[in-house]
């Protein structure tokens, strides 16, 4: 099966803080669910930034859905972003807009005709289980609910891959599990997911492929959770 996302010997060095990624290569297949695991500072966020082309690699090549980091111009990037969904640990919702307005905003600014926005927003909020709280403002929602709004917003363009940077980092166990189930459900409908986390227990339960990062290097790519548990303990 063809990879929809491929990193080829990718390195990223910042002028001040030094190497953030060292010679990382992997491939993501269509509709796959992959965890990205490692301690903070291991390079998870940098890796996701390179995939969304917020940054370009110092070395190597990132290929995402037909775009290459070597040839993409900065005005191509909005087109790439419309094929990705991105969610963060801190949700990044607009505090002065309701849940549905936050989701609608992403459609408005990408030029979707007004008439199509309302039904799509309603459908997405239903999908993430928040239809009843469409008119609530972010501060009226729990952390888990806010992340659901953010996920709904990330899905507006029907992305082929969802990049989730520690989406459960601010949530308690119950909410974490619920968000994970939601991401799995989205995944079963065909969207690939890369979920960065340092929650080893979650990976243990899920028994899915994971990419283990340490000091900017990809040190393991597979499903051997026992190894991961030992690794994470050893480095603590």
């Amino acid at each position, binding site marked *: 099966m063809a990879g929809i996302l491929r990193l080829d010997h990718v390195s990223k060095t910042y002028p001040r803080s030094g190497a953030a990624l060292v010679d990382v290569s992997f491939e993501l297949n269509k509709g796959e669910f992959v965890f990205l695991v490692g301690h903070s500072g291991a390079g998870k966020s940098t890796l996701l930034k390179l995939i969304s082309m*917020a940054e370009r690699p110092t070395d190597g090549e990132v290929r995402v859905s037909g775009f290459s980091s070597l040839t993409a111009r*900065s005005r191509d990037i909005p*087109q790439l972003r419309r094929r990705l969904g*991105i969610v963060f640990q801190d949700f*990044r919702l*607009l505090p002065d807009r309701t849940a549905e307005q936050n989701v609608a905003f992403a459609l408005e*600014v990408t030029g979707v005709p007004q008439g199509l926005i309302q039904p799509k927003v309603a459908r997405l909020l239903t999908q993430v289980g928040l239809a009843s709280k469409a008119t609530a403002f972010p501060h009226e929602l729990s952390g888990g609910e806010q992340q659901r709004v953010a996920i709904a917003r990330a899905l507006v363009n029907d992305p082929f891959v969802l990049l989730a940077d520690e989406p459960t980092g601010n949530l308690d166990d119950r909410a974490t599990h619920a968000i994970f189930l939601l991401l799995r459900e989205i995944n079963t409908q065909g969207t690939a997911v890369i979920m960065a986390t340092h929650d080893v227990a979650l990976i243990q339960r899920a028994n899915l492929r994971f990419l283990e990062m340490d000091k900017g290097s990809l040190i393991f790519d597979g499903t051997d959770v026992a190894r991961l548990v030992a690794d994470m303990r050893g480095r603590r």
Partner: protein
Amino acid sequence: MRLALREVVLAFRRAPLLALLGVTTIAFSLFAFGLFGLVAINIRSALVSIEDRVEIRAFLVDGVADGQVDELMRGITKMPQVADVGYVSPDSALQRARAELDEFRDVMEGAMLPGSVELRLKEGARDPATVLAISQRLQTYPVVDEVRYGREWVEKLYRIRNIAGLAGSVLGAVFALVSVIIIGSTIRMAILARAREIEIMRLVGATNGFVRLPYLIDGTLKGLAGGVIAVALTWGTNALVSRSLLGTVFFSTQQVLLGILAGALLGLLASWISVGRQLGRIWREA
């Protein structure tokens, strides 16, 4: 577009004072241009009417023979710049002086006035340089004693016009610079206030142009408003001077429209510069 206009209104509500300040400085910038421009065009129209009366008078030496006068007249008529020429004999000069200066009638009893030749130049040949050249040419005739013309006046008016033009440009440019800075900082504030929204717009794939558009519209509208105010101020000043001091000329419709357009362009330029810099900063931080 609808979204962009909504942002413009929001930006105005967020910092109305700063927005007004931006409009005001653009207005003052163009007002300075306009005022001195008005002085310049009025001096020009004054120059045209004065130049209309520019005449060169060549006083002749005493006791010139009629034949010599005829020869001089023929020579002058051949000059392409000369519109018409007339001879004033010593007798008619005295008569004219008596008529014009009635109070000095006694003094002039038995006085002798020199004969002279008066000539007027064609339109387009009344600038100081041509007047000087013709005068020097007349001076070469042996019968000509002295040549006089309103040289000082013509040159002074030309100089005033140039100074007015320069002063207007300098003052206008200073105001223009200030307005660019102020409009730039209003946009900076607006962008910082919306840093989060802009970050999300980028995240979900809004194009650069889409992000920029509201700010460019904002700047252009401010410039347009400034231009209209400047025209109103200039017109008001002109009307005031016209009524209380002396009749003046106002700009043509085309010049007025050009002024308003200049305001819009100034606003657009200011916002263009600022948007580029501020968005660049947000991109890097995000």
